[in-house]
């Protein structure tokens, strides 16, 4: 095996068969993060500052979801936060779970959970019909 000196950093060849997935994942975190600053912080301010959660009731949510715009807002927030959070947790698991079997198990659990919650959230946003 060829020894690699510190000064060789800039000239090392990329790993064989490497995909650009990690580059796109890195870039996605920045882009989705920018959108989430607006969506998540906006959601927090609407719910906790401009309104008060003490006044939150069925009618409040139903009135919001009467318009497709707030359903779209909430769906974008749901989708981006799940993708952003799943990728973040994927990286945390890769960094902190040394045992390969445990890591794979944790990652599959994460992907399963995220998919299930994405489907649940999307279903609620699409299927909700007010009853009062």
């Amino acid at each position, binding site marked *: 095996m060829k020894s690699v000196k510190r000064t060789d950093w800039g000239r090392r060849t990329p790993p064989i068969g490497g995909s650009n997935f990690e580059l796109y994942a890195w870039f996605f975190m920045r882009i989705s993060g920018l959108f989430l*600053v607006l969506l998540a912080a906006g959601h927090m301010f609407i719910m*906790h500052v401009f309104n008060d959660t003490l006044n939150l009731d069925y009618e409040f949510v139903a009135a919001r979801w009467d318009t497709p715009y707030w359903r779209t807002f909430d769906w974008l927030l749901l989708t981006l936060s799940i993708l952003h959070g799943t990728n973040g947790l994927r990286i945390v698991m890769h960094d902190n779970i040394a045992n390969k079997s445990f890591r794979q198990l944790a990652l599959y659990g994460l992907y399963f959970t995220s998919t299930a919650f994405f489907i649940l959230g999307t279903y609620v946003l699409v299927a909700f019909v007010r009853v009062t």
Partner: protein
Amino acid sequence: MAYQNIVSTGSVYKGRTGMWLYLFHRITGVALFGYLLLHIISTALILAGPEIYEGAEAIYKNFYFRIGEVGLMAAVLAHAINGLRIITVDLWSKGSDYQKALNITALFIFVAIFVPTTVKMIDSYFELCLEKSSAGTTIVDCMVRPLPDWKTK
């Protein structure tokens, strides 16, 4: 900068502000993801109708959860503002030359938004609690009573 000896400390982490911010970003990130899942479940209960949804929401309507909401706001704001700082360092060609200034700027922006937000959330809690509760209710009642009777008034 002069030549620096690279000495292994047994860890890649050097323990300065950048490392603590990195750790802080991970902890708030994992916590927010956990909260997100709980939040999706409690919101999904709205499909079960007004009684069940509002019954679940009533659990959150007390002062302990108001403190929790302030903590949630802190986590969201801190993760968002630190994320903007990371994007600045990554994508601005001179970002890494101004890390200290960026850290301090991020902290100031956080405090400038978080403090008035907290004042509003706490103030609004007591105002609504006193307004909607029966006569004679005190601020202490609002703090210790687990389930205020919003729906009866």
